[in-house]
């Protein structure tokens, strides 16, 4: 009866958001990958250079208020030094429950040029210095997948409109976003499949497009009913995060997506609010959507670099160096700060203007992956983050 109602249409309907989530320029791809074991890892890339000092305010630092005349308002106290941006009030209960943590002063090894685009490439490639040619199109999450012997590449898939470097590489990834339709005759489908398969540049994307639009609705009504129960949160970010949570409740163990809108050069007090709202939405929706599996989930929200310690001339901030890593999840040893604080006095700054990073952000990601997926630290330092000094285990995971 419902022959023409294909699976993707069904997914779209059950989630109630059609193309709009994927079409938003502020939301870029969600990538999902299946891996063995019960632990889940979600990496959110915050594009545009998130101001760690605004999200996580060092109220106890005597220099803070002087550096930030319009951006040092009171936040929600986390400990006797740091306060959370008031717009993240929905995350405060997670801190109290031990499901939220921060590394306040971290960064990638990328220094001084402060280019968003270079910085994001380094963050996603997970390399230090200029990218070696062999790593230019591979991301660290993909390289981590190659270390998981039971990872089923065929069930691994990616959701989104743009390519996302962090999950590109040898481990075959499929990329998708819900809401795409393709009405093709079986013969056209067959012929196109034959043409795409013959062209290396088009093969993977082309065959995925044909596969994902060709899936039929399950005949039995039961699957449909259970999926119909999945309620999306309001807004594009929430809808996308709900979709990610649904996959993570299934065989998927690794997901990555990005949230933009952090490049707050002007009037930051107002300009940062939508981005903070999206980040909070994403985390709370993952938490709600994952249900009992939230307890086995770790979320890392990382950005390409931090922003200047001093406000600029237009009540915003410019491109800087060190910044904060946000961690969330029920698997987390949370409710604490990792890695110390460099201080904000002039001699403590990086280059006299930026927050001094105290630890490579890749070390946090590396230790999290080691503890979540049972990898060896030496494999991570060799394959996932080549040349990284992992240092001591910060013990992020319970």
């Amino acid at each position, binding site marked *: 009866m419902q022959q023409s109602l294909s699976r993707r249409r069904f997914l779209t309907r059950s989630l109630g958001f059609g193309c709009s989530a994927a*079409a938003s320029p502020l939301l870029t791809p969600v990538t999902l990958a299946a891996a063995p074991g019960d632990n889940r890892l979600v990496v959110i890339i915050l594009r545009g250079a998130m101001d760690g000092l605004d999200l996580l305010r060092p109220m106890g630092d005597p220099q803070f208020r002087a550096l930030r005349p319009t951006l040092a308002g009171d936040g929600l106290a986390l400990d006797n030094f740091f306060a959370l941006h008031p717009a993240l009030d929905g995350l405060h209960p997670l801190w109290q429950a031990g499901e939220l943590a921060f590394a306040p002063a971290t960064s990638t090894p990328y220094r001084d040029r402060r280019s968003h685009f270079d910085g994001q490439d380094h963050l996603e490639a997970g390399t230090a210095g200029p990218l070696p040619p062999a790593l230019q199109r591979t991301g660290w999450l993909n390289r981590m997948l190659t270390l998981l012997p039971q990872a089923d590449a065929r069930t691994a898939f990616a959701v*989104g409109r743009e390519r996302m470097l962090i999950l590109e590489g040898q481990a075959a990834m499929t990329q*998708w976003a819900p809401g795409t339709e393709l009405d093709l005759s079986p013969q056209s489908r067959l012929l196109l499949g034959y043409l*795409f398969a013959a062209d290396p540049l088009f093969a993977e994307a082309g065959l995925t497009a044909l596969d994902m639009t060709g899936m039929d609705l399950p005949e039995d009504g039961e699957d449909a009913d259970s999926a119909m129960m999945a309620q999306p949160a309001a807004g594009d970010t929430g809808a996308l995060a709900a979709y990610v949570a649904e996959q993570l409740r299934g065989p998927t163990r690794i997901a990555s997506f990005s949230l933009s809108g952090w490049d707050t050069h002007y009037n930051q007090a107002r300009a940062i609010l939508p981005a903070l709202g999206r980040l909070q939405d994403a985390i709370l929706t993952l938490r709600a959507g994952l249900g009992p599996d939230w307890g086995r989930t770790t979320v890392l929200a990382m950005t390409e670099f931090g922003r200047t310690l001093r406000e600029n*001339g237009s009540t915003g901030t410019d491109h800087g160096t060190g910044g904060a890593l946000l961690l969330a999840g029920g698997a987390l040893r949370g409710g604490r700060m990792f890695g110390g604080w460099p201080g904000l006095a002039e001699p403590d700054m990086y280059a006299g203007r930026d927050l001094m990073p105290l630890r490579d952000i890749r070390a946090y990601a590396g230790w999290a992956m080691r503890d979540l997926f049972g990898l060896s630290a030496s494999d991570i330092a060799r394959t996932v983050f080549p040349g990284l000094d992992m240092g001591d285990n910060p013990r992020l995971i319970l």
Partner: protein
Amino acid sequence: MISKPTLAAIRFGAGLGPDHAPPHGAAALWDSLDRETARTVPPVTSWDTRLARAIERRDLRRLRRDGDADAQEALRLLNRSDRDDALADLRATLIRLATAETGFFERLSRFWSNHFALQAKTGTLRFLRAPYAEDALRPHLQGPFAEMLKAAILHPAMLDYLDQNRSVGPASRAGRRRGRGLNENLARELLELHTLGVAGGYSQEDVTQMARLLTGLTYTLDDGFSFRPNIAEPGIIEIFGTRYGGRPVTLDHILTALDDLALRPETAQHLATKLARHFISDAPDPQLVAHMAASYLNAKGDLPALYRAMLEHPAAWDGPLSKTRAPFEMMAASLRALAVDPATILGLSRNETRRFLDGPLRLMGEPHEEVPSPAGYSDAAPAWITPQALAARIDWAMGLAQLVPTDNDPRDFIEIALADAASDALRRASAGAETRAQGIGLILAAPDFNRR
């Protein structure tokens, strides 16, 4: 081995079509440039119109704030007519490319529009990409790069997009009185994206100095661009060993610095690399790039010398076609290959334009009036080829093939659309389609047609 006319049409132009003989090679592309430069039809919305609309919007918002009951409805109508203008601009620019003699000029125009990428921020200025390109970029496509650079950097659309109108010299009169200071957004992108390139050897100190030098650039809706000495940083500012500025502060100091930037070897290298990557290959022949950069510098930064150096170098004519057509280029090439009557496209209604052009472009990953960042769209061949974007291409190709009334046999159409760039596999597959329309849609959706 693809023939030179086919390469010329597909790699450097708008593609092949029954109404346009393919250019024989470099000379024919070169000759077409002057004729295409003079072509401004179909027209797009002028920048002056955009500014006038912005003033109207600002005034209506004030009235609404003051409780004017009719202002809300007037704003709604204004926004609707602005959106209609933007859709008309989309139709017009698509037809310009689809019906150009060779399309080389229009392709260059798309390239520079992405090089000096910007979009409207939420505010009074809206839907401005096509009017900005018309006003700031297209008049300078055939002149010295410095002229285009100055037109782009000083343009209100750019000053707004990269916050330059928010930047104040800390030691300027306004800076001292109101305690305001620098915003280095435009200064950084000027060095990183528009001139030297990220590998161009500049430092944070250079960015800061450039930000100091750029102060004073601003605009108002009523007067457009203006240079305001009272926000400009006074004193000598040294950048790359050259001293600029001094008292009194004048716009000339900034223009001189932009002139100098345009002629730096790093800029020549950056522009040559980007242009060769755009047209020829993700990894262009280093000798080709070196030849282009040297020719550019020899010609004192003249852009035609850069284009000519690319076209005359043998490596520009090596096969195979390794780049991918951007969604907009693919649409235009399809319309050209099918010889769709321009009046049909130009006559599309608001909703038809959304359904047939605007919506599909968004799904293919290149929404009209938007850029992903100040760096513009990625120019790497695989960047456009994601499963979902490809699904959107297939969908559009199949839909177009069904809509266009054509007696075209796919076996004939493939010769028109691809000539000797068609693979044997595509010849067999298109001949094996169930209907003529499906065969034609298959050709438009196939890898062969989506490469350039």
